[in-house]
């Protein structure tokens, strides 16, 4: 009970494990490219929670700065990925990632 009521490092690690699992599930199973991107965002958020949790309980600033850079990279990634998805939609008239197989023999 003491473990449950005193919020510690393990609580944050548990939440981030769930977010990482759900993100991987979305990347693995969804056919819509936009939902795959949402899964990637969930994974990046899980990583950020871990960085900030370790930074808080370590007392240093490294995790906080790294989390800030992760957010910037996530914004750049989302912009580029959306541009690619829109180009795929213009060419294939679909964003179904399993039907875009023109490189396959």
């Amino acid at each position, binding site marked *: 009970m003491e473990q449950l009521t005193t919020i510690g490092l393990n609580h944050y690690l548990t939440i981030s494990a*769930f977010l990482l699992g759900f993100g991987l599930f979305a990347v*693995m*199973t*969804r056919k819509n490219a936009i*939902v795959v991107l949402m899964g990637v965002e*969930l994974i990046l958020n899980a990583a950020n929670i871990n960085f900030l949790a370790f930074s808080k309980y370590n007392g240093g600033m490294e995790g906080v700065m790294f989390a800030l850079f992760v957010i*910037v990279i996530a*914004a750049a990634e989302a912009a580029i990925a959306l541009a690619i*998805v829109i180009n795929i939609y213009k060419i294939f008239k679909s964003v*179904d990632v399993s039907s875009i197989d023109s490189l396959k023999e």
Partner: protein
Amino acid sequence: MSNPTYTVIFYLFAAITVCSAAFVVFTRNVIYSAFSLLFTFFGVAALYVFLSADFIAVTQVVVYVGGILVLLLFGVMFTNSIMQGQKSEVLHIIPGTLLLVGMIGAMLYTFYTTHGWMPSETTLQGSIVERIGFETMSRYVLPFEMVSILLLAALIGAAFLARFDKSSK
């Protein structure tokens, strides 16, 4: 910190985050996924406040909710016609479920059987905005400049990639 109110609020935000993340993944409707992602991002921002990273929490709300979520919604609206519906099929459902259960199980097993976490005596307390400013302009000034150039290049590249091709019309 075992203040009961603190604990209850933490569990509330943790439940919002995890449940809405599950809804993002398990619902078939792409629009529902995008709006559920909003609650996930807000829940994660609240958890950042609990981790005494208030600046990161505000950045999360501004960048993710104001930027990335709007971009994703724009993508959803642009690439799905209303007639064909917003339903999205799934594939590899069994390997995906195995990966989900295996990944969460393995990580929780590792976290809870590792007794080596030794929290420092001087955990981060209070606001860290001032310390972020000092770190950005001293130790992290080169990564800061590099990431700003990267963001500029990525946004110009995205605008270049997504522009309408005039020559083909």
